[in-house]
């Protein structure tokens, strides 16, 4: 079973590496853009799965970090700064600070309260972006220059953007896989499993949950910065609560607590959006039943249909 999942991962990665070449030959550059989008949203979904699947934190405001990372790039290039290191440095720093702030006020709460607080903060940032007219307000902001790293890597180039995004996604997956098995990860999972017990054996859950929330926020902020580079446009819509919902659907579709499942979930969701929206603008009507089917018949997401997991817990 383990072997099978490794083989599948390797296969998936190999396919992803070939996308630019194939789309080039087949003259379907549109699909390169689509795959880039999948890779970027996969980062957001993986970042959510890290705290949702391993820390029990149901963040319903994760799109806020997409916005923070995206606006970091948009605003800097508005002032003529296109240095990639500055773009991503600021995106990382800003999303870390925002996550620290939101986290400090939210990670002590659980369940519905946590959902509501994260949602409330993301809506606040959404309305903040709408109200600041310097940066386009409601209409959004064109990104005047994509990120350029020391004149070598230029994210305005479609292939380079794609490979950079893919490398970052793989790096994030590797970091997350190491993290969940590390001491820190064990504590995080212990808190999700039984917080009261963790306190009784001497852990203070707050600091671990907060740090996990910040790590997750930064990962999602990086995704936002890449997204701004892809669309060369950033608007408050990126932080709308429905975006947060979409990220969560991706994570659930692929399978909570699987990390890699989030990548599949992102591909599946965006793929469905792509195909179904050709038939009807109300394609989400079709998505609803599909979600119900996944939740009912594949409780651990689509990934569990391919790779059965070890005999899992079934409480009660």
């Amino acid at each position, binding site marked *: 079973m383990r072997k099978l999942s490794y083989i599948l991962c390797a296969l998936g990665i190999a396919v992803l590496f070939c996308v630019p070449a194939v789309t080039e030959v087949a003259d379907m550059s549109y699909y390169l853009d689509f795959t880039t989008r999948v890779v970027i949203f996969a980062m957001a979904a993986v970042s959510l799965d890290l705290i949702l699947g391993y820390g029990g934190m149901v963040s319903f405001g994760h799109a806020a970090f997409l916005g923070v990372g995206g606006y970091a790039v948009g605003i800097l290039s508005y002032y003529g700064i296109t240095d990639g290191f500055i773009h991503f440095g600021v995106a990382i720093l800003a999303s870390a600070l925002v996550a620290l702030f939101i986290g400090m006020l939210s990670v002590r709460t659980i369940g519905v309260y946590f959902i509501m607080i994260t949602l409330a903060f993301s809506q606040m940032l959404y309305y903040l972006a709408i109200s600041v007219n310097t940066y386009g307000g409601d209409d959004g902001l064109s990104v005047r220059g994509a990120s350029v790293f020391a004149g070598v890597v230029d994210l305005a180039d479609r292939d380079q953007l794609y490979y950079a995004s893919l490398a970052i996604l793989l790096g994030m997956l590797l*970091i997350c896989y*190491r*993290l969940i*098995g*590390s*001491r*820190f*990860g*064990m*504590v995080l*999972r*212990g808190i999700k*499993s*039984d917080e*009261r*017990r963790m*306190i*009784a*054996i*001497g*852990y*203070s859950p707050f600091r*671990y949950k907060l*740090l996990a929330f910040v790590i997750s926020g930064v990962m999602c902020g990086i995704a936002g910065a890449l997204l701004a580079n892809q669309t060369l446009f950033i608007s408050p819509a990126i932080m709308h609560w429905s975006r947060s919902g979409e990220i969560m659907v991706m994570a659930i579709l692929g399978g909570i607590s699987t990390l890699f499942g989030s990548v599949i979930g992102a591909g599946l969701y965006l793929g469905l959006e792509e195909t179904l929206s050709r038939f009807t603008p109300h394609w989400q009507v079709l998505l609803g039943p599909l979600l119900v089917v996944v939740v009912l018949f594949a409780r651990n997401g689509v990934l569990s249909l391919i790779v059965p997991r*070890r*005999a*899992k*817990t*079934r*409480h009660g």
Partner: protein
Amino acid sequence: MDDALLRIEGLVKRYGGLIATDHLGLSIRRNELHAIIGPNGAGKTTLVSQITGEVRPDEGRIVFAGDDVTRLPPNARAAKGIGRSFQITSVFLDFTVIENVSLAVQARAGHSFRFWKQAAGEAILRDPAHAILAKVGLLDRADELAVNLSHGEKRALELAIALAGSPKLLLLDEPMAGMGPEESLRMVKFLETLKGQLTILLIEHDIEAVFALADRITVLVYGRAIAEGTAAEIRNHPEVRRAYLGDDEEA
């Protein structure tokens, strides 16, 4: 020097009109096994939770190893050496048995802000965890998910987790609850091996197990200590016979 590891003075806990702990004083000496008996609802679990810090007392003081810990949060008290087992089994069901114990060992083995090295490969976590599992008889179940254990095995794991923090004071809230006679006997034998190595506060309904194990016994009724003494003294205490044992043991 004070030979009491834990001293409780004038402890009061009210739930609305109900007094769960009623001006309770209690002193537990180093390395003794002190048992608390009392009918359902006497306030035994409430007392344990106040000692661990999970429940805040309304009045009174709790002094542990010479320090007033009344205001200390529970995780800080655990770090000072107060460990507990729960009356209702509370283990990490989706962890393996060895992971359950390793996680408790980890709380005492350096800090947990390590993000890359895999905890499962750390000998300083695994070796002590193995040793404890061997002690409680769960070594052959080490790689099983806790959710798949039998009730008795879960109780043993509950105890293993509490021991893994190397507590100075171990609070056991009905460790034998729901166990069959054979499992209970094994638990009594195991607790006997712990005697003298650390201080234990044992709460247990199985009166014969208590008489066999305890150095001292406190009888709690309506949150008050109505009697305290050795097993022999408690067995023959008239008020205890009336209030708790029922007077049917006269022979």
